[in-house]
């Protein structure tokens, strides 16, 4: 029963300010569903340099995995197999992969859940270079990208895979691709959301037709164009 306001003789008129603050904060918060992403990209661009200095300042990346532990990379045993409907299948060691013609690009990485990392510096091998080397059959209309993180898999059509900035990236920001980003090599297709950018790549198979990858099996779009799929855009 404690805490009743003082007796009427001393009571000041009260206004219900608390509920106003409560409702105002809720409304302001919900409005951020409209303006939040653009405001955040401005802020995160400003604090990005601090991430290198202070380990716990978020870099903008989030590490998504679908299994309990991340695959480990052993350079002495690791291979990238490229096969299926091709004339010249390949099995590349890490040294062989990194000795192929090198390409670099700066592109923005978009996650379907809403976060993005701008100006990511990738180094690696053009997927189109690799496609030329294995000489796919005419019957091959899609590529299957198999991750060492079982059962992660995803597909691109041959046309999607031939986009000029599709990369098999083994470097991030000038350093070997870190484990959490898919070491030693991941797919990078900036036009599509992150779930198409398969990490811990270990096999590329040319197949007759495209199919549902891991997240597509859970309701996400096969053609994951940034801003034009998965309920975004029109």
């Amino acid at each position, binding site marked *: *029963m*404690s*805490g*009743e*306001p*003082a*007796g009427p003789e*001393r*009571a*000041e*008129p*009260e*206004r*219900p*300010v*608390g*509920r106003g*603050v*409560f*409702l*105002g*904060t*809720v409304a302001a*918060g*919900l409005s*951020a*569903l*409209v*303006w*939040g*992403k653009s*405001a*955040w990209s401005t802020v995160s661009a400003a604090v990005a340099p601090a991430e290198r200095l202070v*380990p*716990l300042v*978020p*870099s903008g*990346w*989030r*590490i*998504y*995995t*679908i*299994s*309990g*532990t*991340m695959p480990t990379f052993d350079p002495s045993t690791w291979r990238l197999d490229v096969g299926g409907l091709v004339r010249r299948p390949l099995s590349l060691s890490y040294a062989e992969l990194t000795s192929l013609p090198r390409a670099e690009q700066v592109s923005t990485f978009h996650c*379907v*859940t*809403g*976060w993005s990392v701008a100006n990511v510096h990738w180094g690696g091998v053009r997927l189109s270079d690799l496609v030329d080397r294995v000489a796919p059959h005419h019957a091959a209309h899609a590529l299957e990208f198999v991750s060492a993180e079982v059962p992660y898999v995803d597909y691109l059509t041959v046309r999607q895979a031939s986009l000029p900035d599709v990369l098999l990236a083994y470097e991030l920001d000038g350093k070997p691709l870190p*484990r*959490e980003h898919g070491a030693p090599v991941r797919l990078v297709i900036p036009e599509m959301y992150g779930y198409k950018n398969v990490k811990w790549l270990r096999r590329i198979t040319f197949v007759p037709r495209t199919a549902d990858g891991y997240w597509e099996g*859970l*309701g996400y779009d096969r053609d994951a164009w940034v801003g034009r799929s*998965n*309920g*975004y855009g029109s």
Partner: protein
Amino acid sequence: MTRYVRRFSRSERALHWVNALGFVYLLTTGLVLYLPRLSVLVGRRPLIKDLHAWGGVGWVASLALVVLLGDSRGLLRTARELDGFDAHDLNWLLRRAPAPQGRFNAGQKLNSAVTAALTVLFLASGLLLWLGERDTRFRFASTVVLHDGLMYVALVLLVGHLYLALIHPATRHALRGMTIGTVREDWAAEHHARWKPQ
């Protein structure tokens, strides 16, 4: 003889500590999902994600249980107390005299309103994230930014709250009220002059 007066009921304290425990749990599991270095260190993302999402459900359910099973009418009176601001409260916020305070000072009233709003927003954005993973109709590009931004706001409030409750000499006696329930009578008279404890 030091005399003590009762400041917080058992239901009020239970609500506070259930909220605090839930927040720390969700902050911990949330940071493992959010910060790359912690994600790498801990791994097991699917498990942590479930622990976080179901923890959020458990948090709100526990708060509701305390309200329903505890002294609901007392808590409702507390809510009214927190809601009402008078001229003294305005003076207190503007650091003008006279500003004698009731059982809650104006800063505590503001903090409780904002904290309650953050709880609603955490729940709403968390539910949208959860549903959005299953149905595009619930998917918005800014949901994850809102959820993360709330964490930063809540963290700033928490740091200030911990400073006042544990370190600041003038206010840290209040911690006794939130643990044992009582505070020194002279402390109450100094900091909450208009409060008439029974």
